[in-house]
């Protein structure tokens, strides 16, 4: 076996392929292709970074909007409370007002305030929760 190899090598005058380094010209050409691959990988990384940035910006926007909605709910409750207190004072302010009307309006206004306040609390809690972003329906 050993004698065979020695004979082959002696015939061509060069080492067998893989037993030695390639020459400089070949190595340079190969490195050029590698450089392209690395450039592509770097570009992909940059794109990923951009995507992530966009996603975080989106999350921030969603958070801000949720807090705005919670604030609006709170204001709705305040306005309802103002209405309820105004209705509560009608019998004291206006002499001769029918207690049937005032009683019904008072009860219903208080109910509405209670219901809206409950929902406003739920929205406030929701606005403090973590945001989960789903992929849009169109994209894979």
């Amino acid at each position, binding site marked *: 076996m050993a004698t065979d190899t020695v004979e082959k090598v002696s015939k061509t005058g060069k080492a067998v392929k893989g037993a030695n380094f390639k020459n400089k010209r070949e190595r340079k050409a190969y490195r050029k292709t590698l450089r392209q691959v690395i450039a592509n990988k770097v570009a992909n990384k940059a794109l990923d970074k951009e995507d992530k940035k966009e996603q975080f910006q989106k999350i921030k926007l969603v958070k801000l909007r949720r807090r705005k909605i919670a604030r*609006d709910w709170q204001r709705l409750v305040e306005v309802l409370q103002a*209405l309820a207190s105004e209705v509560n004072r009608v019998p004291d302010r206006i002499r001769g*007002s029918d207690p049937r009307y005032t009683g019904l*309006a008072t009860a219903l206004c208080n109910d509405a305030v209670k219901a809206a306040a*409950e929902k406003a609390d739920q929205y406030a809690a929701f606005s403090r929760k973590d945001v989960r972003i789903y992929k849009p329906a169109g994209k894979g």
Partner: protein
Amino acid sequence: MALSLISRLEDVDAFMDRVRMQIERCTPDDPELGAGLAGGDLTGTQSAIDKAAVAVEELDYHLRDLARAKARA
């Protein structure tokens, strides 16, 4: 008195519309909000506010009638 009741009702209507528009505008970017994970079903709240609004309007008409009767007498 009557005028202030109606104007307060209008405030309530304006804020309800504001909340509605906000939720509608945010739904495309925020599927959780659109799915109702925030506050669940709003029909109960809406009907409660509507009932209160009707009662307040009736009270307002009653107060106006009262004022008219007083003016006549």
